[in-house]
């Protein structure tokens, strides 16, 4: 299909989509007047039922915990799929039909990481790890949780890389251990749900003590536990993902350098 034909087809499809949009939006209640009863029911009972003051976390890890298990496994599958896609490629690089432009890259020096970036990144590593950890363990209290905390925690590892310490980053990134951590996070979430079933309760029912003070770190039972497990899984998944992509740059760099013997990307 030629680009012009493609644009015409797109124009027709968009006209239809625009009509559907206009129709759907005409039926929506005005901005700020949401009539959905589900959220209001949860808002009325959530704090009393779960002792979690972060109602979004309560929705994520309790009321709609089953949804979140699904989301969790999308993340897990994406990370796993990525390492599969890139791993198969490694075997194929030798017989790749296209050679990178070696000549253009020859004779270029790798720029050194500036000391300002090194110092700033290394100074930020510790606080970032602490903030990530804090976010992952405070889902029941405030707008935080495993998803946010996990990403911030992974950022701490990226900062080590950004500081130019790519060898340290490799040591901090034992792939086998990260794989185990990711699987434990994802599997642990599902297992907490099954533990409730084992006691004759519904899947993902909050069977742990809820604590006395709403919003305390020790409150909300399984909501806090699941959030922590999600944090572990997300952090491991993102370190794996970024590590895989960085390996790719090393692979290309190695080949443009004429297959140097550093053996890093093997």
């Amino acid at each position, binding site marked *: 299909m030629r680009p012009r034909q493609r644009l015409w087809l797109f124009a027709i499809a968009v006209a239809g989509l625009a009509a559907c949009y206009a129709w759907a*939006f005409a039926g929506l209640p005005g901005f700020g007047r*949401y009539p959905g009863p589900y959220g209001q029911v949860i808002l009325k009972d959530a704090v009393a039922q779960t002792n979690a003051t972060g109602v979004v976390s309560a929705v994520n890890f309790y009321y709609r915990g089953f949804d979140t298990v699904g989301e969790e496994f999308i*993340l897990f599958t994406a990370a796993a799929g990525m390492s599969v896609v890139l791993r198969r490629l490694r075997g194929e690089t030798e017989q790749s039909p296209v050679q990178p432009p070696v000549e253009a890259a020859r004779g270029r020096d790798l720029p050194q990481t500036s000391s300002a970036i090194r110092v700033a990144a290394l100074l930020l590593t510790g606080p970032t790890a602490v903030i990530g950890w804090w976010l992952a363990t405070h889902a029941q209290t405030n707008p935080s949780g495993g998803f946010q905390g996990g990403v911030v925690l992974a950022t701490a590892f990226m900062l080590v890389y950004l500081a130019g310490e790519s060898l340290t980053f490799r040591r901090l990134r034992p792939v086998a251990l990260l794989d185990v951590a990711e699987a434990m996070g994802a599997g642990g979430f599902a297992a907490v749900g099954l533990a409730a079933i084992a006691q004759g309760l519904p899947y993902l029912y909050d069977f742990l003590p809820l604590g006395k003070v709403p919003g305390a770190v020790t409150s909300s039972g399984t909501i806090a536990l699941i959030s922590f497990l999600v944090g572990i899984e997300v952090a491991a998944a993102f370190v794996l993902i970024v590590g895989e992509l960085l390996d790719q740059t090393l692979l290309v760099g190695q080949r443009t350098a004429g297959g140097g013997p550093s053996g890093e990307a093997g």
Partner: protein
Amino acid sequence: MAIVPFLVVAWIVAVGLYGIVTSRDLIHQVVCLIVVQSSTYVLLLGVGYVTGGVAPYFFDISVHAKAVDPVVQALALTDVVVEAAVTALLMSLAVQAHKRFGTLDPHELAEFKG
């Protein structure tokens, strides 16, 4: 003015779709897909907004305070992280396409087989 958030949603979808259709680069195409997807966050949060409502966190306010809908916020929250991971997967597919065929142009890639 009540319609403005929904116009913003439609605009983000349209811009992203136009980018996907006219794109000549797989990485650019993936970024356009993220733009389309981010419209769902605006839609979800726009739909769940309640005039005068606070964020649904009751750590230091009364549990009876009027708050916005927490369900749509939970949906948007999980999706942000999952989207980032799926984007990484798509990027790795683009990396592989470039290594195999030496191009990131979808029009040229369409001519290859396998």
